[in-house]
């Protein structure tokens, strides 16, 4: 495989965001109604709870063409289902360990607590991740 040549002008990172219904998704909704602008690189998948987000969803997204994945959960103590976000965080920590083993940069997958009122934080996190992915370049999965 040839060395990574990042075309900064044409490369647009693709990001899949898994957002829980009660906090992160509502936070994004608030960003929309507040007319905040954030990069259009994200595609949001809504789940009822971040505890539903299996590490296999994230890995499947990455192998199917996403350059990065963002998991939006409630802040600790805020979970609508009491402890779903704690589970999401534990799964994420396992996933980070696995990403290391597979030679995928940790920075491509990020987890953040975004409450329903944190539209500005949603904007900031998405912008930061897009910038980070621009720096890292497209995700290439070695096949052979």
């Amino acid at each position: 495989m040839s060395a990574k040549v990042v075309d900064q002008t044409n490369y647009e990172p693709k990001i899949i965001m898994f957002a829980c219904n009660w906090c992160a998704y509502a936070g994004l909704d608030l960003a929309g109604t507040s007319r905040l602008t954030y990069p259009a690189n994200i595609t949001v998948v809504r789940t009822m709870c971040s505890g539903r987000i299996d590490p296999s969803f994230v890995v499947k997204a990455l192998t199917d063409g996403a350059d990065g994945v963002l998991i939006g959960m409630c802040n600790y103590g805020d979970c609508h289902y009491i402890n779903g976000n704690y589970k999401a965080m534990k799964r994420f920590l396992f996933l980070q360990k696995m990403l290391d083993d597979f030679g995928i940069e940790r920075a491509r997958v990020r987890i953040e607590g975004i409450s329903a009122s944190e539209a500005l934080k949603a904007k900031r996190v998405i912008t930061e991740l897009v910038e980070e992915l621009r720096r890292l370049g497209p995700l290439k999965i070695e096949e052979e």
Partner: protein
Amino acid sequence: MKEKPKAAFYWCSTCGGCEESVVDLAEKILDVVAAIDIVFWPVALDFKLEDVESLKDKEIAVCFINGAIRTSEDVHVSKLLRQKSQLIVAYGSCSHLGGIPGLANFWNKESIFQKVYKEAPTIQDETPILPQEETEINGLTLTLPKFFNTVRRLDEVIDVDYYIPGCAPNPDLLLEAVQLILSGNLPPKGSILSPNRNMCEDCPLERKEEKIQLQSFFRPFEIIPEPGRCLLEQGIICLGPVTRVGCGALCMKVSMPCRGCYGPTDGVQDMGTKFASALASIVDIDDDQQFMKLIASIPNYSGLVYMFSLPSSYFKRKNMEAVKNE
């Protein structure tokens, strides 16, 4: 007399345990031989590749191939057998999921050759010799098969009709498969010829607590497990929750944890991430720092959960390029 259906056995990159499991049929192998004619079985019978080449297309009724795809020879013979056989059965974990040889996907050809032929201690103090695909000796050319960078499953190279999982497969599964094929009452193509149920359903060990709440993990040699009690509940990592039945829970019967050789149940492709999901929810530590310490206490988590299934995981192999760039 009516001609008996022809069968063939072949090994790709494998340890030979699958061949052993065929022999493990014991006296039942006589029933198998009475019903079918074995035309190719490199490990046990003296047939050559030319014998297979001389057969007509689709002349072999069923061919059992075990072992992962590691070299160009594996690909060549698999393709030849596909051409000559009506049915191909991927036999054993290696051809079904990639198996133990598939763990080599955490490295690549370069790093494996480096370790094996250059760094490994040797009694010969000479410059290391790397295997070459072609060598000239006395005007003759000797050849070796090409060694691939990545270990693949059998179905990534040829079309596979059925799968018999296990490392090594339970001989009863082979007998059932042979009977099924002889009866002509075939299941849908691509079926795994082992029940689609979860290991915990068949496991003889019992859970004592309502909810598993772990504070620490143990390796099997670190504690003496309580007999008859769920191993996961005692902190020994057991892959039963993501594994398919068929083996008869042999490991758990002797208090050894399941390592997932039968692969996942239908609908799950990647065992490791599913198991991470399951394992995370039974750990009773809410502090992230402490949880990270707990994860770090597992030596080689990915090697453990993908022990038999790395080439069938989503990533299939380690991204060597990304590591270089860091």
